[in-house]
């Protein structure tokens, strides 16, 4: 194709997006669109898969059968999200093995919040309430993103995430209305997860790359700082309901701007974790890589078996 032709196609493409039409895998798309989507969707998929680990850590120790079942179901949902997000990526011509390889080699990122350890049961509440809460704020706008498979995956994901968020809040609520030890546990979890949750919404706009292009493609509809403000404004009243204190002495309602002012985020910590040096990065990667490597013989066997069955079918057909 000539440059001219490509330019035409690009214009048509951008116009379609501007008209809110969905782009489907078989449609023509600019290479950068394809790559950006693979990057963002796979990062999202990886986050789901790595995100199974901190919560998986409490399955064996959940304090009641009801909670154990709910936690299992939640982690299962995350696996499910991972699965359709990987599938959505695959529609763009990359294999799941390649995606895993990117995760395992450290080339692909995942949400850095999953590099914090889950140290008490209340963390199951805090993760649902705060982490899933922040995730929803990130993801709801994506239900209208331009790439069809991603938008459709997001609709389903958001529905489940919002169930998880309510479930997390309910865990916190139970703790906050329990014994003083339980309430302490809840407050402690909030203290530990609050700042990482704010960081989860990404670096400040000043430091953020990819934003402009992503806005155009509806891969991003609000800036990180706007999303963060929305998260804070939504969450502070929920903490009040729980009777918990947000661990930020600078947090204050700003009547004028109609939202909360808040303290400074420790971006050094954020970058340390993003670069692979957070409290649990090594543990998470060992778990994922370990599962993959130890499972190799199983996947090989499944493949070999399927081939044998196929061959047998052929033999019988002849």
């Amino acid at each position, binding site marked *: 194709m000539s440059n001219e032709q490509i330019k035409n196609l690009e214009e048509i493409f951008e116009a379609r997006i501007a008209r809110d039409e969905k782009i489907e895998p078989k449609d023509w798309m600019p290479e950068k669109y394809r790559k950006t989507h693979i990057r963002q969707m796979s990062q999202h998929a990886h986050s789901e*898969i790595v995100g*199974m*680990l901190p919560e*998986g850590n409490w*399955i*064996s*120790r*959940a*304090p*009641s*059968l*009801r*909670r*154990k*079942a709910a936690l*299992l*179901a939640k*982690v*299962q949902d995350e*696996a*499910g999200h*991972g*699965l359709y997000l*990987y599938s959505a990526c695959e529609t763009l011509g990359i294999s799941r093995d390649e995606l895993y390889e990117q995760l395992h080699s450290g080339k692909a990122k995942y949400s850095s919040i999953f590099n914090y350890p889950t140290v008490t*049961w209340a963390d199951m509440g805090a993760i649902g309430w705060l982490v899933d809460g922040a995730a929803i704020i990130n993801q709801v706008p994506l239900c209208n993103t331009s790439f069809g498979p991603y938008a459709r995956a997001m609709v389903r994901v958001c529905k489940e995430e919002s169930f998880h968020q309510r479930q997390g809040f309910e*865990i916190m609520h*139970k*703790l906050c209305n*329990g*014994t003083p*030890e*339980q309430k302490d546990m809840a407050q402690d979890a909030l203290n530990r997860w609050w700042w990482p949750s704010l960081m989860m919404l990404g670096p400040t706009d000043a430091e953020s790359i990819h934003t402009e292009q992503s806005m155009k493609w509806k891969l991003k509809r609000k800036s990180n700082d706007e999303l963060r403000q929305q998260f804070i404004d939504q969450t502070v009243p929920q903490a009040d309901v729980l009777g918990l204190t947000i661990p930020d002495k600078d947090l204050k309602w700003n009547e004028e701007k109609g939202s909360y002012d808040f303290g400074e985020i420790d971006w050094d910590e954020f970058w340390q974790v993003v670069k692979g040096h957070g409290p649990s990065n090594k543990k998470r990667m060992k*778990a994922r890589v*370990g*599962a*993959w490597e*130890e*499972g*190799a*013989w*199983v*996947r*090989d*066997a*499944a*493949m*070999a*078996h*399927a081939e*044998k069955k196929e061959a047998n079918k052929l033999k019988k057909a002849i």
Partner: protein
Amino acid sequence: MNKKHLFDYIISIADNSLILAQRLGELCGHGPTLETDIAGTNIALDLIGQTRNYYQYAAQIQGEGKTEDDLAFLRLEREYKNVLLVEQPNEHFGYVMGRQFLFDVYHLLFMNELLKSKDETLAAIAKKGIKEVSYHKRFSGDWVKRLGDGTEESNQKMQEAIDELWAYTDELFDQPEADKTMIAEGVAVDTLKFKETYYEEVSTLLKEANLQVPESKYFIRGGKTGVHSEFMGYILSDMQYMQRTYPNMEW
């Protein structure tokens, strides 16, 4: 009706599902594929669901005001009556599927009989569970076939797992005193009725999976009398941790 025996009988069924679910729960996020993680979690969820029904009923029979969680989390190791098979560790995926398969074949035969129990609650639990357990059995059986009839390595690993786990199959059919009384009452399942079928079904699938049917006549037992393997203590120290550390609280 001997209440104590009925209680003991229900507990022994419930414990099997609980401990197997606990083992499956450990694996979540660590399996060979996402699809197996999802399926494993599904099976664990089904088992916990069944377990809750059993414990709720047992607590009611007992009539001491205990909850399902008291029964699940606050007994001593010697009071758990699950078979040794279900507490065996997740050594590798072949063990996990082997353990599951050897249990599932039993479990489905068991449920099909429990359906006929004179105890309506037990029959109802069985009715609800049969579909779930059929699915478990299909899933684990398919994997035993894939691994048995996959690569040379997977065949070896699967065979090794079956050879080791085989020693725990005979216990499935043991009938402690509570079982015998309840069988006589028409409440419990007479496991001996389908023992032969069990070994036939298992053997047929193993052969189909290109695996040897173990010939060992030595079996290991103990779980049904509460004498567990050394693995059990560690399962319980994790499982009971919260309830032991924070007694008398609601979650």
